[in-house]
């Protein structure tokens, strides 16, 4: 059954991760931000350089602050299926699944990835703290839920030469791994072919005492493959290009909302295809059935906006007069060469009505604000997609 974990001492400042010594040596700008209470690099030297390394070389990023929970026990599969909207039974052992989970009203609590480590063993990775929620989900079921956020540190190795780095580091066994595969490639070292960049990439998990040796191993193997540390700023651009949502940015995680009506369903976030109504009851199922029948209230869409000025925080208008939504994330995409954004629009805009949309962009130029109304086009495909990211075995670059 569920066991309470021993309380740990409280850190009063942002906590260094197990990789911090290595990161600090490389962080020329000394630019950090908080991420779940940990120190996380915003930029090391130059975010453009780091972004282009994601798309052209290999990058290492410390993702240890990700929340990690192990769900293990005879009822683990039932608990996971009760939590998430998709059917975890269709995910084989050794595979990783993207998942969303909802409250009783069908509003998205968070999204994340679930590693199926065994028939009855899962590792859940997500952005927000879920320890209590998982215990709520598990009431009446038999499984142990442990918070492994600090028991496992993690590096994300991303970029077209990511596999070459692994190979040079003696981990060529990863060659046969397909996207979303995971395995314990060496005792105490788990690897998955996953990432948040849309490029070829892997994530590696190990115990904190092995952090330095793992970093050094990948770092020295990566030198000939252009390895570069990356911070959150570069990652944010890469994830936007490839169409990954950022919780708290592109949607409001409902548990962190105080106001009613700020939650969004997976349908409204564009992930209705994940919702599996045939798998039996899961949290929010009845509410989601009603939402599906009624249709979405909002559409979170990708916008291709004319011009090159990022439409951060812009209102979206229909036919120049009516505000129908707002931009949640925006950037100039250096790879797609397009001015891209995520925007949340009130239905039917972004759904049945997709023409006549404009973004109202404010640009600060030499002491003055300029306003530009730019045409915005709803696009269905991610702005960036690369076949090499899915090729197995991967090419050298």
């Amino acid at each position, binding site marked *: 059954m569920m066991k309470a974990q021993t309380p740990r001492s409280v850190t009063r400042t942002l906590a260094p991760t197990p990789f911090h010594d290595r990161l600090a040596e490389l962080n020329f700008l000394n630019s950090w931000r908080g991420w779940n209470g940990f120190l996380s690099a915003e930029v090391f030297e130059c975010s453009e350089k780091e972004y282009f390394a994601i798309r052209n070389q290999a990058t290492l990023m410390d993702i240890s602050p990700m929340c990690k929970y192990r769900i293990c026990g005879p009822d683990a599969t*039932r608990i996971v299926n*009760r939590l998430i909207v998709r059917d975890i039974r269709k995910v084989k052992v050794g595979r990783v699944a993207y998942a969303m989970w909802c*409250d*009783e009203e069908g509003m998205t609590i968070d999204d994340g990835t679930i590693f199926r480590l065994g028939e009855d063993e899962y590792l859940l990775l997500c952005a927000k703290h879920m320890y209590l*929620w998982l215990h*709520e*989900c598990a*009431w*009446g*079921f038999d499984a142990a839920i442990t918070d492994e956020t600090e028991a496992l540190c993690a590096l994300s190795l991303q970029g077209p030469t990511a596999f070459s780095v692994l190979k040079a580091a003696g981990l060529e066994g990863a060659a046969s791994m397909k996207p979303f595969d995971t395995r314990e490639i060496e005792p105490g070292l788990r690897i998955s072919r996953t990432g948040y960049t849309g490029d070829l990439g892997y994530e590696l998990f190990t115990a904190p005492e092995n952090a330095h040796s793992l970093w050094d191993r990948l770092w020295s193997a990566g030198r000939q493959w252009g390895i570069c540390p990356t911070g959150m700023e570069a990652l944010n651009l890469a994830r936007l290009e490839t169409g990954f949502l950022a919780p708290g940015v592109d949607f409001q995680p409902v548990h962190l909302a105080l106001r009613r009506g700020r939650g969004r369903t997976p349908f409204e976030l564009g992930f209705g295809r994940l919702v599996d109504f045939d798998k*039996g*009851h899961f*949290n*929010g*199922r*009845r509410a989601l059935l009603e939402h599906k029948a009624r249709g979405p209230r909002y559409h979170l869409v990708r916008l291709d906006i004319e011009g090159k000025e990022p439409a951060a925080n812009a209102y979206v208008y229909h036919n120049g007069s009516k505000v129908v939504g707002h931009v949640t994330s925006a950037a100039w995409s250096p790879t797609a060469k397009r001015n891209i954004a995520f925007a949340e629009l009130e239905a039917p805009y972004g759904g049945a009505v997709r023409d006549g949309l404009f973004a109202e962009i404010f640009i600060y130029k030499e002491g003055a604000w300029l306003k530009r109304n730019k045409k915005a086009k709803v696009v269905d495909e991610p702005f960036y997609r690369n076949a090499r990211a899915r090729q197995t075995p991967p090419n050298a670059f």
Partner: protein
Amino acid sequence: MAGEGSKFDVVIIGAGHNGLAAAATLGKKGKRVLVLERSGAIGGLATSYEISDGLPISRHAHLAYNLNPTVIAELGLSGKLSMRPLATIMLSDDARHVEIDGETIRFADGSAHPDGEAYKEIRNRIKKFAGLLAPLALRSPPDPGGGLSLAGAGEAMPLAALALKLRLMGKKDMRDFLRIVLSNIYDLALDDLPDGPLAGNLAADAVWGAWAGPRSPGTVFSLMYRYGCGGAPLLPQGGMGAVAGAFAAAARQAGAEIRTGVSARRVLIANDAVTGIETDKGEKISAGAVMSSAGAVQSMMLAGAEHFDVEAVRRIRNVRSKGMTAKVNILLKRAPDIPGLSKEQMAGRLIAAPTAIYVERAFTQAKYGEMPAAPIIEAVIPTLADGGDRHAVSAIVHYIPRNLKGGWDDAARARLTGLTIDTLARYWPDLRDNVERVDAFSPADIENETAAPGGHWHHAELSIDQLLTVRPVNQLSRYAFAVRGFYLCGASAHPGGDVSGAAGRNSALQLLNDGVLA
């Protein structure tokens, strides 16, 4: 008896009076109903047994004071029931007992009580407010998610009518209602009364069955609840089993089948809808709907927690139902003799709660899991009215905690027996030598025998946070219990406990109204 695979419209779990009220209501509408009762006897908390040959006595509950007149009329119970109103005697250890008989308040020797008028003023005010609230008991709680639609407005009608009636009472009464409705009975009583038997009466009548003391907020409301049908205590002839028997007769008359000694192992569910139940003997009985008069947690677990949203499970498992009430039946060797009381007075409702602070002190000990030094007791000697020469006392002993420190065992039960006799003997010294046999039922025994959660006689504390739209919990207050076709029909649902029949009857009407069986 119908065999394997037999088809019913509705299977009802538990033949307590609420389950039976639901069965009778549905049967009258032409539905084929099966009631399953895990114990050998029907009635739940309202059963009788023979304490001695030919001497029936109520096993748990012993008085009916909230039996809903609409339920009685709808189910045609009046011809099946014989009940006698009782005067209330507030026992006093100086034999200056106080008699409360409707509008007559006096000492037992017939002399006037100086505080009688002040007591009546408080009681009648609470009764008046109780009358305003009473219609709510016969409707499903309004749907808070219904919004401002026309249908939603219809749902809110009883509340709107209540608001209107409050307004029509005039500003003074409305203010008074709003001032006292959430307050505590201790302060209200002692504002206008010295602490004594009359304040003790209000305090005790506000807390029977409750995990609350007279100083707990909301106890004025619980007194209003008790006065919902006038508040007159009625003694059923033959004990409470006769009341349940009347409900059972109405159910059978309406075509319902009742099977005892069979319990539900689980509710069968397919595609998020009830398909029937499986009994403890493994028999599967298909049905379009299943109603449960068990507590909220037990009902949830019969269906399986996986069919409930996580938030619902959290709410349901946090429903407060800590039993505080024990039952002690005492077979007497000879006719009772209580100093200061006539034989007629001895046949009344005898209450050991000499002051309001006495009641509060008993709660203070009990809430920490201790047996109180002096519990409050409501005793009746039903045999006195029948004119026989054998007598027995039926005593509700309150502030006996279910979660007693050290747990419930034979020794604890012996302490309960001793405590009950000691407490009654303060007013009735002769009792000690008059005891032939004692049957003591601790809250744990009551829980084991009736499956009432925590042995709580309301199945869930009747407090303002567990009433109306939040009974048993937020979002599940309209009897439908998460899975399509699964309904709560017992005391854990609105309007709550007491032998009123309203929960079962309302639930049945809601089921019919929801179109589940169509």
